[in-house]
């Protein structure tokens, strides 16, 4: 590779940050609190804010006993994961007749009789205990600006802690891994998974020793990895391969990343996600000055990628993702597909669809390469429970022989001749059709369609 394909500090700052990132956007990205407000306004998924403190009085007035298990304390204007404390469990220590007794948290434990006093402790991710007064002192330190990027007065926020996705359990140490997607001009240009290690003390920051794993934008499959800026292929000290991992909810993350950029004046930015096993991707942070280490994890130069999409005008969300998938697909992704083998399907197949309870329901499906996204009958989706609980991801406009129509898009999982496909489908009225489920070309990339019988 040529040196001028690589994005360095000089080119990043001078060519991209100063030109495309406006102050109004940086203000939002630099404050985790403003980021949360921004995401909430746009109804984009993010870890729930429990409380925020901007003044010392707030800290003293807050009912600390109201906190439950699993929360995170962060400085709103912090950087590099500094000052973040992850709490796994609340522990209520009962002092009664001189005996000390540790008890797990319960919502009633602090409403004891006056003859007992109780004190609250919290358990960190590594199992050590922090007392409530130490925790408050930490919050005061945050307010004082100790972890602020400019050492200015800061705000402390407490948000819910996102669980580790079971897929990453073996790869990540203590903390939750995150996925970063760098977006330029509404086109995702590079992405990486960051895995906390013992060296990084459970933080997903590569300058503290976290592992960074490059992701193929077309498939969401990991391609290469780095640790301390050195290429690696396995988790150090273990045998776990870092390549070939499939990132769950990949397409959804790409869509969210582009949607964020549409609403913020940051032309070159990174969107960081945590993956909740149940809720899917949650946006945890926006970065106005993403680092350059991601290039080593991907074994690819960012400057060249950016230059290829710089001139594109009026990129609509769907197109930006298509552009990214077409331009930046790794040869690797073809290999993966070849390894899996191309399976041949007929026009009419039997698919198994996963319902809301996780049960596989067998049903006839039509293979249609003329449609982009898969499509499911509304009545069928409702009967399987797929429309419940805010399942609708977003709405898309579809043009068909019937005219322009707005259809909800929901996540679906199905199996086609033994291959599991996690994807999205639009919901339409197929009540008059024989096949209530149609599989579009988006989900057929590893299949060959045989038109005849």
């Amino acid at each position, binding site marked *: 590779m*040529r040196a001028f394909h690589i994005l360095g500090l000089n080119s990043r700052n001078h060519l991209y940050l100063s030109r495309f990132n406006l102050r109004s956007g940086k203000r939002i990205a630099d404050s985790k609190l403003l980021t949360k407000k921004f995401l909430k306004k746009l109804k984009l998924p993010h870890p729930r804010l429990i409380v925020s403190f901007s003044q010392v009085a707030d800290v003293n007035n807050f009912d600390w006993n109201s906190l439950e298990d699993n929360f995170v304390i962060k400085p709103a204007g912090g950087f590099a994961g500094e000052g973040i404390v992850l709490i796994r469990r609340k522990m209520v220590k009962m002092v009664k007749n001189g005996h000390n007794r540790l008890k797990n948290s319960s919502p009633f434990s602090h409403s004891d009789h006056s003859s007992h006093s109780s004190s609250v402790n919290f358990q960190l991710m590594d199992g050590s205990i922090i007392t409530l007064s130490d925790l408050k002192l930490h919050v005061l330190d945050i307010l004082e600006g100790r972890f602020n990027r400019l050492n200015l007065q800061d705000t402390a926020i407490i948000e819910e802690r996102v669980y580790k996705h079971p897929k990453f359990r073996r790869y990540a140490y203590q903390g939750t891994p995150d996925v970063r997607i760098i977006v330029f001009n509404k086109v995702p240009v590079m992405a990486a998974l960051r895995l906390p290690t013992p060296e990084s003390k459970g933080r997903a920051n590569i300058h503290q020793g976290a592992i960074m794993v490059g992701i193929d934008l077309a498939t969401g499959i990991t391609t290469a990895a780095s640790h301390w800026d050195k290429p690696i292929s396995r988790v150090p000290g273990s045998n776990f391969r870092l390549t070939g991992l499939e990132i769950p909810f990949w397409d959804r993350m790409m869509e969210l990343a582009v949607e964020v950029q549409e609403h913020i004046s940051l032309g070159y930015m990174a969107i960081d996600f945590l993956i909740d096993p149940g809720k899917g991707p949650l946006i945890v942070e926006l970065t106005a000055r993403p680092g350059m280490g991601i290039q080593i994890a991907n074994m690819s130069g960012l400057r060249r990628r950016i230059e290829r999409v710089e001139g594109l005008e009026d990129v609509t969300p769907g197109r930006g993702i298509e552009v990214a998938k077409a331009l930046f697909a790794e040869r690797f992704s073809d290999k993966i597909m070849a390894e899996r083998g191309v399976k041949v399907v007929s026009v009419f197949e039997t698919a198994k669809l996963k319902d809301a309870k996780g049960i596989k329901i067998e049903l006839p499906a039509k293979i249609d390469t003329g449609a982009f996204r898969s499509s499911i009958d509304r009545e069928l989706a409702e009967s399987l429970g797929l429309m419940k609980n805010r399942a609708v991801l977003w709405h898309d406009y579809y043009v068909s022989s019937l005219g322009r129509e707005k259809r909800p898009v929901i996540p679906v999982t199905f199996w086609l001749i033994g291959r599991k496909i996690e994807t999205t489908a639009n919901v339409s009225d197929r009540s008059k059709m024989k096949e209530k489920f149609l599989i579009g070309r988006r989900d057929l990339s590893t299949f060959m369609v045989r038109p005849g019988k």
Partner: protein
Amino acid sequence: MNLSNFLQFAIAQGEAAGVPLETIVILLLFPVVATVIATARHFIGLRGFGIFTPAVVSVAFLATGLRLGLTLFLGILLIAILARLLVKRLRLQYMPNMAMVILVISLGVLLIIGVIGGIREIGGIGEMLGLDKLLMVGIFPILLLVLLTETFISTQISHGLKQAMTTTIETLVLATIGYSILSLQITRDWVLAKPELTVLLTVAVNIFLGRFTGLRLMEYWRFRELIRK
């Protein structure tokens, strides 16, 4: 007087009015030192604590001499790290914490001055460290070095000891380079003889640097595996 010698004219006027030559030389060379620090950042990748701290420490070194400057700085830093370890146990907030550290540094420097003043006779090692000149150094160089300590500690708190050490070493390297520029007879003579040319060169270098978008030397090293691919 015209456009090509107006600075020389100003220098001559200043000298005639009794302004110390040292002041004029530092005034003229300070932007040069700043430019060299900027070059080190954008071309090599040496960061240091911004631009002002290394430049000011260069001037402090000029007042103390390089040996005593480095000794003083490392001594003050050592006291500061120890002081922080002591004060840390009190669990104070940032500002009172820093004030306590400064108190310990002041007492430490005072103690050293007292000891050296008391001994009078300084052995070989003392001279090697430049301690014989300590009693003649004014307060300002010492204060400037304490300033660096504050930056060091706040970096240590927010970025960790390793980062603070690296940046401090980079700062000292930059300050040493700055010191050589300020103290070498060649540069001093040059800047007095050709002040206008110096200004012009400084402007040109900075405009070039400010628009340079290539990789820094240290980035060539960081991305060597990528480039090799």
